[in-house]
């Protein structure tokens, strides 16, 4: 009798738990499904990823990947990814994921001037520094462009 009562109680608890879980699943789906329907349209996985991150410029990731592919196809093996600000981790991850076998070295250098950042990149034996420039989007600057300035500076 006691066993049957406790079994019934357990069954009741299990039923209630399932109902609560289903309500939680429904709430999670309400948030997730609209996003996934949106990114599920056939617009290319890269743009979908950009949408997923909620980036205002959906082409940001596309352009970054295209730039990385270009550098990779040119045979470069080591590039510095200079960043600062929002979404940097997300963008750096995308860069790293799509760059292999080229190596992406992340460097957060918000307070340095452009030429100083290039010098840092040169010290890391990188061939290029990828960064965002206002009005130009993603730019890969060869680090050697910084070296003549350094030499000139040293001569002064």
């Amino acid at each position, binding site marked *: 009798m006691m066993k049957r009562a406790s079994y019934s109680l357990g069954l009741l608890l*299990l039923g209630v738990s399932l109902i609560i879980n289903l309500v939680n699943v429904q709430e999670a789906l309400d948030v997730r499904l609209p996003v996934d329907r949106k990114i599920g349209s056939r617009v290319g996985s890269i743009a979908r990823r950009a949408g997923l991150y909620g980036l205002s410029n959906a082409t940001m990731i596309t352009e970054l990947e295209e730039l990385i592919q270009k550098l990779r196809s040119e045979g470069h093996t080591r590039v510095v990814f200079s960043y600062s600000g929002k979404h940097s981790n997300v963008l750096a991850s995308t860069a790293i994921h799509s760059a292999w076998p080229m190596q992406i070295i992340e460097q957060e250098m918000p307070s340095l001037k452009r030429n100083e950042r290039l010098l840092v990149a040169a010290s890391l034996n990188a061939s290029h520094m990828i960064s965002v420039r206002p009005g130009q989007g993603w730019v890969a600057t060869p680090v050697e462009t910084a070296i003549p300035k350094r030499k000139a500076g040293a001569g002064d």
Partner: protein
Amino acid sequence: MFDARWPSLVVLAVLILSGYGWLACFRARALSGPERLGVAFACGGAWLGLLAAVLGPFELFIPAIIIPLQLAPLAGFFVGRATAEEPDEPSSPSRAWLGFLPVIPLVVLSFWFAAQRPVWSIDAQRRWVLKAQWMADEHTPVPERMAEVEWAHAHPSYPPLISAICAQALQLGSDRDEGMRLMFPSFLFALLAVIYGYVRRRAPPLIATGLTLLLATAPCFSVLDAKKGSYGLGADSVLADIPLALFLTSLSVFVLEAIGSSGRIAKTYWSLATLIGIGAVLTKNEGLLFAPVTLAIALGLAFFVKRESPLGRARRPMLVVFAILTSTSLFWKWIARNMAVRAGEEYLSAGVFEELSSGARRTARIFDRIVDSLADQGLWGVLWIWPLIWLVWFAIRFLKMDAEQRVRRVLPFLWLSAGLAMVFGAYVATGWKQGSWSKLMNVSLARLLIHHAPLALILACDLFTTDVKEKPTTSDETSYLDAESAIG
């Protein structure tokens, strides 16, 4: 689109075939229906992980070598046939599948999510798939190149199993994005199937379905992709957390089954526990430690009972499995000894003790955060209430149980407690980003809890196992398991 994904389907098929081979080698006839398929997948994954760990350092992770070795266990079908004995207790696969049907829509939903979403979470992009790319190209999980400190962010010392699965798909021509997606919900399927099979052997089929659904509907397992900064929770993510939950849960399940069995059946379960335990070790750093700890806890408890009792008799096989899992952990640490490790993330080093002492000040806050997370219905539903109910039930029944029963029933609770304690300890000890433990908890707490959460259902199952044998007052010498199978 299809050609970017077919290699991953081939990889899944090879893993399952290889796993079925192991089930034949181990003569695991008692497993049927979805559980058999799920365990086969887990065994196939564990075997691939072991091959990657052993052959990888020799740069032999290439399809021409790995795939034949993966399929070698299929020879077990012939060996099994030659030494065929009486079958284990007959089980009906069709009935087993019928009870599992309500769970299928949630698994399908997870596959649907996976098909939609690119490989997007930071850990997937920077660690698991990146590692898969270098494994595919350089045929080893530990290339010299990855010893450079600039690669520390990629965690090249992480165990190889997950990346090995992805790398195999890449080697067969898969795309590094679309090709990765469809493989990972398979781990959720296998996890649910293992839970279902375990409960079904102990409780009425309705309970097996109900408890499995309880896990399948825990939002962070099935549908939730992110919460409070923790990304990649659901089974559609290319991450190692649900795979580790599968291996750790299966290890626990097969240790429990082995303790309750004897003769050839016990050998079968110990063999499964060993292979699956190796899978846990080679999936994630947490598994490197927790898989041997699982056996150590069981072994410790076995010394509290009489030597001739079922648990007492299990001491020797437990010791063997413990030794194998510990050796595998140490072996991987040795293989990956030269790989770059990020500052503050060497959890298994001696430095962890320094961190533990300096992190002691934050213990209360860490404890509060963990309790808050466990109570978060949006993450877990009401999964975590079941261990509490079990605790009350166990306290009420405590005096009516004999020593053997107490110890065996408390074992999953101790595993769960140890798992939570380890999560707690990790945050106390972390030196991540100069001790940003709070931020680390934001991004990883739910994922670490996922590793141990299914044990809550193993405890819940105990409540419905209608076989609590009272302390013998007569000459009733029927074993606990006999009573169990007689009633079940």
